[in-house]
């Protein structure tokens, strides 16, 4: 069973403004996210001896943890840069930080991601520009598979076919995220969305329309972890890492398995088992939502509904604020901003700390965070508990 640790806890989280941050580079954005996270728990850079980050996707950097570490004036004894894809990277950062703290490599670690993916994009470019190769190019590019929309469109087409779903299911996901974003001052999207808006939005790769796609954005988020002993000494507000589970099944969509065989179901089962709880115990869920289809596939796989039932969860309001399992209370990648999923983790911690303001889920005890990198290539599930 995947065990993280009981010896390290989350004590702080923070984010920068999202949208366009002209004049800021990725290093400065990550540094600001770190400072904001440290402010949330009353610590300073002098308290930090561990740093884990992800380098920018848009303008690749090497050794980016040392770039940010030097800028912040850190002299960390544990330092790492990781990249396993959307939100799973964030969980991997937390996992590494927790293990480093538990084994004595550091006492207080910050996990951070951020970049200027929007303002650094060349004029006229569409979508999310990935400057690094991912290894599957030889088996994708000759056929015109480019960018991230087409791969998810292939998943969406099959999912809707298998379960008799329609574009209205995708629209229901987009609308719920927008409703939540309107309660978040730090969200890019400010206007309500209707099913007609969704239906009228431009087709990108069938069946995915513009409003099925997440928002390329500048911004950053960070989380602070420390030992339980130190957290108690500081009198910090603690969030426990109950479980983190992951499963990789493939990289390129060119050879992806059946949707039912994505790693999300296995990761979910293991995360629930390790935490000793089930879907019915979850108070709030922050699920990686690079596209509307991502959330439907994830809710099915995690057992929140029968296979194919996720659209109904959205149509019934069960996964919107006020419902049984509010999903992506911050507006998610779809309506807040795509910050690699780091803000899903920030929001989960914020909810468990009771600091989510107008979108607070009352008395939230358990939060589930899910992620997938690539095209459900690697799936991760993390369960957090209010301490």
């Amino acid at each position, binding site marked *: 069973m995947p065990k993280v640790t009981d010896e390290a806890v989350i004590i702080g989280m923070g984010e920068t403004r999202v949208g366009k941050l002209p004049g800021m580079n990725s290093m400065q954005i990550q540094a600001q996210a770190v400072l904001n996270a440290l402010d949330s728990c009353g610590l300073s850079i002098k308290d930090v001896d561990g740093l884990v980050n992800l380098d920018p996707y848009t303008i690749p950097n090497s050794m980016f943890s040392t770039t940010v570490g030097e800028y912040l004036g850190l002299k960390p004894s544990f330092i790492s840069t990781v990249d396993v894809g959307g939100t799973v990277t964030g969980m991997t950062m937390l996992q590494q930080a927790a293990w480093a703290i538990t084994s004595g490599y550091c006492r207080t670690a910050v996990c951070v991601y951020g970049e200027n993916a929007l303002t650094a994009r060349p004029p006229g470019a*569409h*979508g999310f520009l990935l400057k690094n190769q991912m290894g599957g*190019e*030889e*088996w*994708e*590019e*000759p*056929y*015109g*598979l*480019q*960018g991230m*929309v*087409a791969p998810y*469109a*292939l*998943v*969406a*087409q*099959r999912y809707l*076919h298998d379960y008799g779903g329609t574009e209205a299911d995708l629209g229901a996901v987009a609308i719920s995220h927008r409703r939540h974003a309107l309660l978040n001052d730090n969200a890019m999207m400010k206007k309500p969305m209707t099913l007609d808006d969704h239906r009228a939005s*431009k*087709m*990108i*790769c*069938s*069946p*995915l329309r513009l409003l099925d796609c997440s928002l390329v954005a500048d911004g950053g988020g960070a989380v602070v972890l420390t030992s339980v002993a130190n957290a108690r000494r500081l009198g910090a507000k603690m969030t426990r890492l109950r479980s983190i589970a992951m499963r990789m099944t493939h990289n*390129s*969509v*060119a*050879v*992806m*398995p059946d949707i039912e065989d994505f790693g999300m179901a296995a990761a979910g089962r293991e995360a629930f088992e390790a935490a000793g709880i089930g879907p019915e115990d979850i108070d709030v869920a922050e699920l990686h939502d690079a596209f509307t289809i991502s959330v439907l596939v994830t809710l099915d796989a995690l057992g929140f509904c029968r296979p194919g039932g996720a659209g109904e969860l959205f149509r019934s309001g069960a996964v919107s604020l006020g419902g049984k399992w509010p999903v992506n209370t911050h507006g998610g990648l779809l309506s807040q901003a795509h910050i690699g999923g780091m803000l899903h983790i920030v929001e989960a911690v914020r909810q468990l700390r009771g600091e989510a303001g107008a979108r607070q889920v009352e008395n939230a005890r358990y939060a589930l965070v899910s992620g997938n990198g690539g095209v459900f290539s690697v799936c991760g599930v993390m369960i957090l508990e209010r301490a």
Partner: protein
Amino acid sequence: MENIFAVLPTPTAESGPFWEACNRGDLLLQKCDGCGHVFYYPRQMCPQCGKREPGWITSTGRGTVYSYSHIAVSFYGAQWESQIPYTVILVDLDEGPRMLSRLIGDDRDRAKIGDRLEVIFVEVEKQKLPFFRIAAVKPA
């Protein structure tokens, strides 16, 4: 087909035989001598059991649509604009493996999941690429 644009592959020593076979009109797959697993794309070992130096088999080039998407936007510049709209597909080959390809033909936009497909090699700058078309339905 007129005016087909494609980004050509950069073959490696391992994948070279696959792309050379395409130029002869053959779609090659690899088959493990140890466990019998048939797989795509070519590798130095079987991804199921790890046995090295898998052999090659020739696919019938027939398969079924697992999924498809009609691409309505070019993400990477003017060259692709000329191809819009075009259709990418995931094909489940009769030999077992799944592969990504491009669907061509006048009935491309009527593709459905489960449709039968056949490979059709299309030459772009001296490299034939294994695209697919909807297979003619045989009379019952």
